[in-house]
């Protein structure tokens, strides 16, 4: 499904031994962002997750181009990620792919059906 480039560019992820939450590295390089524990193991996040909630932002601070879509989505095992969405609306329950992106995004969500 994914090209080797995008797969290798995705941020590495960690999983917390204390609370089981998983997260990509930019979220918390040394400690779990949810409980502060430092017992972190490596984990591979599922490529496809599910939108927990999303909104289309139409008024933004100066400098941002509107509209844009934002979402939280869950990726196994135990990651809830926030990102901008590419590929249109992403109502709750929509499958989205995790795709690497330049800073400050680090990663974005891509609506499944728009991907080859």
């Amino acid at each position: 499904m994914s090209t080797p480039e995008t797969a290798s560019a995705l941020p590495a992820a960690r999983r917390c031994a204390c609370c089981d939450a998983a997260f990509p590295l930019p979220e918390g390089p040394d400690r779990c962002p949810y409980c502060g524990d430092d017992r972190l193991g490596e984990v591979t996040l599922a490529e496809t997750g599910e939108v927990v909630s999303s909104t289309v932002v139409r008024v933004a601070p100066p400098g941002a181009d509107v509209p844009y879509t934002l979402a939280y989505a869950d990726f196994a095992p135990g990651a809830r990620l926030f990102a901008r969405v590419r590929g249109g609306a992403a109502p709750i329950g929509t499958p989205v792919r995790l795709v690497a992106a330049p800073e400050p995004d680090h990663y974005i969500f891509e609506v499944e059906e728009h991907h080859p």
Partner: protein
Amino acid sequence: MTSRRVAVIGTGSVPFGKHEDASLEDLGGSAARAALAEAGFEPGRIEAAFSSNVLGGGGAGQRILARAGVHGVPVVNAENACASGTTAVHLARLAVAAGVHDVVLVVGAEKMTGRFQGGITLDRTDRPTLLGLTMPAIYALNAQRYAYDHGADLDDLAEVSVKNRAAGAANPQAMFRKPVTRAEVLGSRPVADPLTLLQCCANADGAAALVLAAENAVSSRHDPVWLLGSGLASGSPIGPATEFGTSRPSRLAARRAYAAAGVTPDAIDLAEVHDAFTIGEIMSVEALGLAGPGKALHAVAGGELSLGGRVPVNAGGGLLSKGHPVGATGVGQVVELVAQLRGRAGERQVGGASLALAHTVGGGVATLDAIASGVVIAGV
């Protein structure tokens, strides 16, 4: 722990709105002097002061209180985002209840207009904020999830604005005194789907103040309203366990306030609730136990939360009508509760009110589900 009864014996406020020529110190000083005048106390009677402000920089309390002749006494500057004012009231109540002080002053003030474009931004360094997660967007995410989980019609959120703006029309202190229709709310500028401009409160300048006293300092010239309990809670990082469409910090603050006051939600006669956005009132009303999970939107549409309904919520117009001078908001809510409980709320009076609640919840740093929430319960 033995605890003394705490009364509000003086209130003062500067109506929320645009006060272009007034400084933060002017606004707060006016409210503080008005509260002292109502209590009939000279500034020298104040033993400690609790000031709430978010945007005015360090030592706002001391700068404000200098305008009210309050010098030398302990001053605590409270900053807890939108819950700052409630935090100051909570700390002041505890100081009197614990017997540390007999008479204290609370002052909340904010100078906001002209400072922000496109909504307030309190922290620009976290990744969600850099990616454009504005305050309306955070509430919009909650609204979408609420509708999904409860099968609600997102357009019904407009009824919160209709209710609160109708209430604001009857409040001479409100910033907006023109009622709005459902069609006007839904037809106003889209901000973050499903929220439209008329579902978002306005930034404002303003101030509010209270004089609190222990029972032994209350005299026959006072018309005391008793602070029966209060509670404070903080948010948690948004993560796998976060339940969008609900407010856990508000639930925790409410639980603590109800426990402190020794009352249950069904005894509340009226509530001033944090309606910074329409969905905020819905989530808050459920967190406060004033409606069951998934029931608050129906309660609004059915008139249960309107003046004359089961438990009027934001009979003063709410933040949607009054505006939201962040640090002043929570103190202003208590000023409103006092007017209601004294039976002096005029056209917006809730008949027979004897127990009332005020609630704020503040966000701002988007990695957390809130910064803080505070609840105050008052009665006569």
